[in-house]
């Protein structure tokens, strides 16, 4: 033992640790670099908003593809979520003889939480991924470069209308989700489980507050719309212009949007309802 020369031994663990720290640092730099790029991109997009408002047909086309074409999946999901909530809620409430509060339970859950959150998650999967793929492929096929060389700013012409459409479509879709969800709950609670029709609606009217509940839900969906649309257009614009790069960017859009929505939902809920 005493003859072992430690300084001559290959210091593999040290080397590995240094490499690990180096990678961590590189990852950190890349993260902040991308965050910076994303913020600059957002700034440029917001600067391009007047150009979109001056040509509303660009926005209308995008509202159709981002909003109207997402309608069906949002409505169907809302219906099922409302129906499941009514079933679950009824089973719990009936033990306390409070099944007439079913309308309140369903509507508050949907308007405050599930409406904005599930809509945002579905939106990221359906419209966000489509936006990223479309913009990424436009980049890969040199359409964005082509526009730049025709002296047309792709951020004004392509990005800004898509971003604004996503931002505007989200609260509308969330409202549809909530309305359909409440009807789903009504259908199961009143239609199938026999809850009193009048009690279902009147308790809901009494307990759901326009500002406290509905408006806070709308604020949530506006924030989610902003974030999801930003992530989707940025990932598309920032994608490596190859088929693999676009596919990765599309995945990132869905994953990052979902994480951002769930994280922000906690923060917003804490801010809105934390002191109750």
């Amino acid at each position, binding site marked *: 033992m005493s003859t072992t020369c430690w300084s001559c031994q290959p210091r593999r663990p040290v080397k590995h640790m240094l490499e690990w720290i180096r990678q961590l640092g590189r990852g950190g730099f890349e993260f902040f670099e991308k965050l910076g790029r994303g913020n600059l991109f957002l700034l440029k997009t917001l600067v391009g908003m007047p150009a979109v408002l001056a040509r509303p047909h660009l926005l209308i086309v995008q509202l159709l593809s981002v909003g109207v074409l997402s309608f069906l999946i949002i409505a169907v999901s809302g219906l099922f979520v409302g129906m499941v909530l009514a079933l679950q809620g009824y089973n719990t409430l009936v033990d306390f003889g409070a099944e007439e509060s079913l309308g309140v339970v369903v509507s508050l859950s949907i308007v405050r939480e599930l409406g904005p959150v599930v809509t945002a998650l579905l939106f990221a999967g359906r419209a966000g991924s489509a936006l990223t793929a479309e913009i990424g492929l*436009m980049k890969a*096929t*040199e*359409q964005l*470069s*082509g*526009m*730049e*060389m*025709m*002296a*047309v*700013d792709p951020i004004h*012409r392509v990005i800004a209308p898509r971003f604004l459409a996503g931002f505007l479509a989200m609260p509308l879709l969330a409202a549809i989700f909530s309305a359909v969800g409440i009807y789903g709950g009504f259908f199961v609670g009143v239609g199938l489980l026999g809850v009193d029709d009048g009690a279902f609606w009147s308790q809901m009217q009494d307990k759901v507050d326009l500002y406290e509940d509905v408006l806070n839900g709308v604020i949530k969906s506006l924030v989610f719309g902003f974030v999801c649309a930003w992530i989707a257009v940025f990932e598309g614009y920032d994608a490596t212009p190859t088929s693999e790069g676009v596919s990765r960017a599309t995945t990132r859009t869905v994953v990052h949007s979902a994480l951002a929505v769930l994280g922000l939902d906690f923060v917003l809920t804490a801010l809105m309802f934390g002191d109750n």
Partner: protein
Amino acid sequence: MADAKTKSDVLVSIRGLCFARGERMIFDGVDMDIPRGKVTTIMGPSGTGKTTLLRLIGGQLQPHAGSVQVDGLEVPRLGRSELYELRQRMGMLFQSGALLTDLNVFENVAFPLREHTDLPESMIRDLVLMKLQAVGLRGARALMPSELSGGMARRVALARAIALDPMMIMYDEPFTGQDPISMGALVQLIRLLNDALGLTSVIVSHDVKEAAAISDYVYLISEGKVMGHGTPEQLRGTDSEWVKQFMQGLPDGPVPFHYPAPPYVDDLLELPAAAPGEAHA
């Protein structure tokens, strides 16, 4: 290089251009003059940064050193609005055509007119039909880009590039992947449009025969440097071994056929176990 030329004869003047991607030097002190009203071709092996050069001229990339002047304007120093003004006087034909896939042929050609002019619809229609007639695709105006062949897409892109009557057009590998008929049509179109519209054309290509056939002047670039320049005839009669190898498409010469490797015999005599990936076999 082009010292004899007066300033007004030269539309694009590049001096001491340096550009690197990461560690790799793409251009290392390139000097180039692109004469006004002529067809100039920039040739070189694949991966020598020919397309990068077009992007530097168009201001899509910033050089690390040197000067790129177009019509007397220093492109890297232009502000955004000045750069966009200059780009309205430049057309660029991308290798893929870069047509907007959600618009049909007519709308693609009308795109720059709608973006940059307030012309009435009837005039836009006339202009678009004139440009499409020039490239022989007036009858294809209702087709979508996905319904076009590669050659047709490039001709539509050409019609779009001349929509605003630019002073110059840059062609990025216009002949790559074309069948002989499309190739012939493009070769003829580039020359005819250049002469009829008084354009300046810059072609980036490695198709020596086609490019040399319509070029007034040729620059050969490789490894970040200009290896030779002159009219196609001058280059054919050159003494430079590299230029000869490139112009005649010889497989071996200053650019070796073999990638650098240890001597063949030494490599073959190595034990199989020493070869990577074979140790476990």
